[in-house]
């Protein structure tokens, strides 16, 4: 059981939750994730740790309401408890001074990107961060990113904030201007696919942090498997970060949709029950 000590809505559907989890707060590094479960009948879902405070013994999760479990988490209040939190899982991001690093975050993917940006900056890199989302209200952690980046470029699909255009436009602006040694991209699979295609064009080594469907998160089940460079890999124990140019994003997209029908049905049912309760 992990108690919620702080909660803040960034927008209608994006929420930040700070949880008591002292051991995880102490052990976690940038790139790690946790698996959570809400209620005895809940499912297990992976969430990247967005931040942690070792002194206070807390970890920060940022989620977008997309289905039953994320909605259940968003509905919990300060003082409530998350039934199960386990981690930190996966490999931490490899951090060193690479030179100039181009970090690109799409939508709620900005949250898992944040600790990586912070760690890269601390290691002495020149960090240029591109934040992209559909519209202004979905751009999160902008101040935190600015505090830890040499430059932040904001892109929105509808032009409601920053520049109008896709994440790749912002990335190309930087690539055309200066030498980029490494790129890190995190966001929806489709965004990572096109971001990876962009950096591949310029031959820039790129890592993507993948958020697939998982059950145990410790290598036991293989639900999270993807194809990287023609080989099957488990995101939970081999990842979550992989060479973005080697990842089969189409397969990943397809696997992410494996339970679409059930998920939609379950979410509709949940929303109906939630309404009746209110």
């Amino acid at each position, binding site marked *: 059981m992990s108690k919620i000590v702080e909660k803040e809505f960034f927008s209608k559907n994006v929420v930040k939750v700070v949880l008591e989890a002292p*051991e*995880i707060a102490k*052990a976690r590094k940038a790139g790690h994730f946790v698996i959570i*479960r809400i*209620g005895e*009948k*809940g*499912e*297990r879902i992976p969430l990247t740790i967005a931040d942690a405070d070792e002194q206070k013994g807390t970890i920060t999760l940022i989620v977008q309401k997309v289905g*039953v*479990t994320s909605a259940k988490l968003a509905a919990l209040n300060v003082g409530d408890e998350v*039934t*199960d*939190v*386990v*981690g*930190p*899982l996966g490999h931490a991001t490899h951090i060193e001074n690479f030179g100039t690093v181009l970090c690109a975050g799409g939508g709620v993917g900005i949250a898992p990107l944040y600790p990586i940006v912070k760690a890269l900056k601390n290691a002495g890199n020149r960090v240029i961060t591109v934040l992209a989302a559909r519209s202004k209200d979905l751009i999160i952690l902008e101040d935190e990113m600015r505090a830890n980046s040499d430059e932040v470029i904001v892109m929105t699909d509808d032009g409601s904030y920053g520049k109008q255009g896709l994440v790749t436009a912002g990335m190309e602006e930087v690539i055309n201007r200066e030498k980029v040694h490494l790129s890190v991209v995190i966001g929806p699979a489709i965004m990572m696919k096109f971001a990876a295609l962009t950096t591949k064009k310029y031959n820039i080594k790129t890592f993507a942090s993948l958020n697939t469907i998982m*059950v*145990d998160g*410790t*290598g*036991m*089940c*293989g*639900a999270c*498997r*993807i*194809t990287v460079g023609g080989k*099957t890999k*488990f995101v939970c*124990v081999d990842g979550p970060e992989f060479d973005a140019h080697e990842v089969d994003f189409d*397969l990943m997209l*397809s*696997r992410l*949709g*494996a*339970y679409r029908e*059930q*998920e939609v049905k*379950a979410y509709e049912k949940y929303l109906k029950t939630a309404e009746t309760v209110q």
Partner: protein
Amino acid sequence: MENIAEYLKAERSQEWRTELRKSMKAKERTSKERVHMPERDPNIRNKNIDEVNLGLTAEMALEEAQRCLDCPNPTCITGCPVGINIPKFIKKIETNDFLGAAVVLKETNALPAVCGRVCPQEKQCENNCFYTISLKKTPVAIGNLERFAADFERNSGKIAIPEVAEPNGIKVAVIGSGPAGLSAAGDLCKYGYDVTVFEALHEIGGVLKYGIPEFRLPNEIVDVEINVMKQMGVKFRTNFVVGKTATLDDLKEQGYEAFFVGSGAGLPRFMNIPGENYNGIFSSNEYLTRINLMNAAKEDYDTPVLSGKNVAVIGGGNTAMDSVRTAKRLGAERAMIIYRRSLKEMPARVEEVKHAQEEGIEFMNLHNPVEYYADEHGRVNRMKVQKMELGEPDASGRRRPIPIPGSEFDIDVDTVVVSVGVSPNPLIPSSLPDLKMTDWGTIVVDKDTMQSSIPELFAGGDIVRGGATVILAMGDGRKAAAGIHKYLQEKVRKN
């Protein structure tokens, strides 16, 4: 071994045992037929998750117990990985002391109700029974009797809590709460150690919970046995991944002086054939975990599972049988085993194969998958299989399957469960560079003490064996507990 033989002899010469032996002629005992344990009707049970085997009644158990000759040299015990005093517990049953029989079981076995259900007794104790060896008759139903005594005790509400030694205050960590870990924890607790079991999942029990289905081993039975351990004083921590949440060094700092690693065979194997990552294709671990641990088939649970009308399960082991029988219960019209050798080579227990056949499972033996195909949504809809024939025996002693060229054909499938084995879980070993491993990723241990290349670290179960049975894991746990006890006592004496 000398001591054990003497102990068994002394036990056997107790008056009650001698009297009991005299009470019925050996000839009368051996003339009795083995009592058959009742089972649920196959066409009813294949639609629900109720337990298949129904257990013996008290009358049946008494009748079966009388068959046991209480041999002077009880060879059955040599077949038991945890060394249960088999004649003693059976003779307790014969005297109507069913609770006493359960106490005997718990002297050496932390999970008798589990073992009575899932042990391959036909390969162990029963295979070494006097009836099997010398009389060439069906052995005493030792497994069924074990189950009877354990169930009787549980249902009586008078569950005996095994005696534990005076607490010595020495902290020992057990990593993994499956059969190996539980067995080690039980014994360590009896020796007087302060034992904490660390489990990565949110439930205690490991494979007993996520792997073995309810129709073979109800979760409730596992929970009762775990509760007994809690009452003995064993502590449990769920949601704790040793090597991640805290390292071994962190735990040492917290005062743990010895470790038992029973982290299991975590990584499912796939065949690396085209299309194997399509949706609807699962490892048996994933398929069974979703259903057994996460209750995916129940309406009010959040975890989903895909299980269709045409389900192919690849493999011939017990896990394959568990998966295919689960698929049938979830409503599959065709639930098929696809196995590359013949029925004779199948590693699954004979009982499981028989139950599967009764329940309407199709067996496509001497067939092997070659490729999978999917619909436009990426969901598997067809698979290509190839016929096989048997050649010369291979390293495992079983005849090697050889593909027959040109024999390929397609079958419609919407769900596939790949059950071709598991590799050891790399989580713990990868966090310990000094730990000596085999090329297969298992931990190297001394076979008598289960001690690894790191003196304070012991290991057992699938992380050492690479993929075995519940009872062998439990045997390892017991051995390791004795090994840890010896190690720590020597350490205490030195200091």
